[in-house]
């Protein structure tokens, strides 16, 4: 395991999505890389992400979704974080975030417009997300 890097993440599967395995793998991968991880598990509401990020003073919120409804579930999350005084917090989303096969460039644009800093397509390996987290949070 890498040395703790002092950066705090809040992660979880948003909405009415019960896919429990992937988020455990992400938790493990992020911990191994030295992050302090609060895993909210599955079926996480927007308010839970916001509350957890406030109490833990998180550096990033990583939203996972596998059932295609993320576009509905994620709308308004950035605004709620803004309201809670977390305007600068890093916000990621990844997984099967839309229904059917859609052009990912378009999908990414839509989620960027919702205030997500990075958007990851299906089957992104944890290493890829880690790389960007470390880059965006200035972890050496």
């Amino acid at each position: 395991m890498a040395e703790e890097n002092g950066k705090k993440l809040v992660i979880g599967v948003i909405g009415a999505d019960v896919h429990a395995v992937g988020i455990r793998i992400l938790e493990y991968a992020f911990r191994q890389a030295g992050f302090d991880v609060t895993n909210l598990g599955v079926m996480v509401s927007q308010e839970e992400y916001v509350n957890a990020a406030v109490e833990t003073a998180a550096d990033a919120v990583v939203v996972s979704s596998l059932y295609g409804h993320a576009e509905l579930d994620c709308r308004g999350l950035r605004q709620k974080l803004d309201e809670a005084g977390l305007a600068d917090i890093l916000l990621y989303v990844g997984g099967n975030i839309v229904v059917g096969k859609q052009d990912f460039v378009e999908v990414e644009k839509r989620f960027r417009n919702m205030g997500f800093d990075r958007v990851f397509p299906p089957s992104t390996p944890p290493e890829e997300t880690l790389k960007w987290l470390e880059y965006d949070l200035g972890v050496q």
Partner: protein
Amino acid sequence: MGAVLLIDFGSTWTKLTAVSLSSEALLGSAAAFTTVEKDINIGLQEAMKQLESKIGPQEYDDIWACSSAAGGLRMQVSGLVPELTAEAARMAALGAGAKIDRVFSYELTGQDLARIEADQPDIFLLVGGTDGGNRDCIVGNAEKLAGLEARFPIIYAGNRSALDECEKILSDFPLTVCPNVMPRFGELQTETVQKEIRSLFLTQIIEAKGLTEAKNLLSGILMPTPSAMLSAMKLLAEGSRTQEGIGPLMGIDVGGATTDVYSIADGSPRDMQVMLKGLPEPYVKRTVEGDIGMRHCIDGIIAELGLENLAGRCGLPEDRAEELYERFSSKKEIIPETGEEEAFELALAMAAVDVASQRHSGKLQEVYTSTGLAYVQTGKDLRSLEQIVLSGGALIHAGDPLKIAKAALYNSAAPTSLRPLRARIWRDSKYILSAMGVLAEKEADLALKIMKRELEDIGEISSQE
């Protein structure tokens, strides 16, 4: 071995219970009005005289007490997010037997500070942020408290990373430091805080409550009454070193102004398919409904159920129920006499038990997901506990206590509320629970033996019937 005298200084009554250590039995009990405004010993001496006339003069090896006189242990708590650290602080204080004046969350406002200054708490519990988490809120709140004129005991149980700074800021308050009530997200750690609350109650608060005189009589134990009730119920449920308890239980105490509910039970989801959301709740849990009571707080019952519902429950027309409601809330000392009044009193007690037990128990909600139906539980699942203990005047003197107790069971009209499916009902007919909780501090075996003998088993009820 001789005898022990147990005193319960209540807001209205000072109750005495004498216990013989050698014959392991109750010797007798007596009660007189509490006289805390003048000198608490006047009422105590009066009760002593009565007790002596009943059981003759006794030599007491020890005199121990609990107290809720002079407003009980009044606490205010402040945390960060209402559902997280503020809720953790509230649960910690309730579990230590406190009466919670106010729960503040986020940064204290000018209005909050004015309230704190006006109604100075006996203890202020300051929390916020997980360890290593948010520190701005708790540091800011410490600074604001330091700007007040008032000084009162503060317990710090928030973000460890902000402790050094807060200790400096709060240096002229009597400050006690405890581990964070929520060290990591979703983890509760309340035991040390509760121990400190009880110890502050004993060493500092008693003087402010006009109990100093009485304290000289006592040989050690003095605890907040709700904390004694919790100890008694925990002992009754779990058993002592040599005797078995009666198993997981729920306790209900309906008073004139509040309704307390206790549960000594695990309450975690019983089914693998059920997901738990929200804060984990303590195994020994106490809730206090400040808006639910038989006299001072009828309004809360009406607000929750509606007058029509209450009228239906007592089989009276709505306008008649309204008249009775006005009579009961304006004449606090009323004792029901007519058939209608008795029906109204019974409906009130059932409603109080119904509402308070629902607020105490967890909830199970159905959620439709892409992979089918899923269940989400918040709070404690109490469906499988099988014992309910009734205490408090309204329940002890009730004509039909089983009917009232049934209002605490699972009900298909409120199917999401995870209340017991069936239970054996015990009644604290001799008002011994708080005294046994005090006795349990040193003589757990004896206290349990007496409870098992003296609590009245009034039968079994089921939500199916």
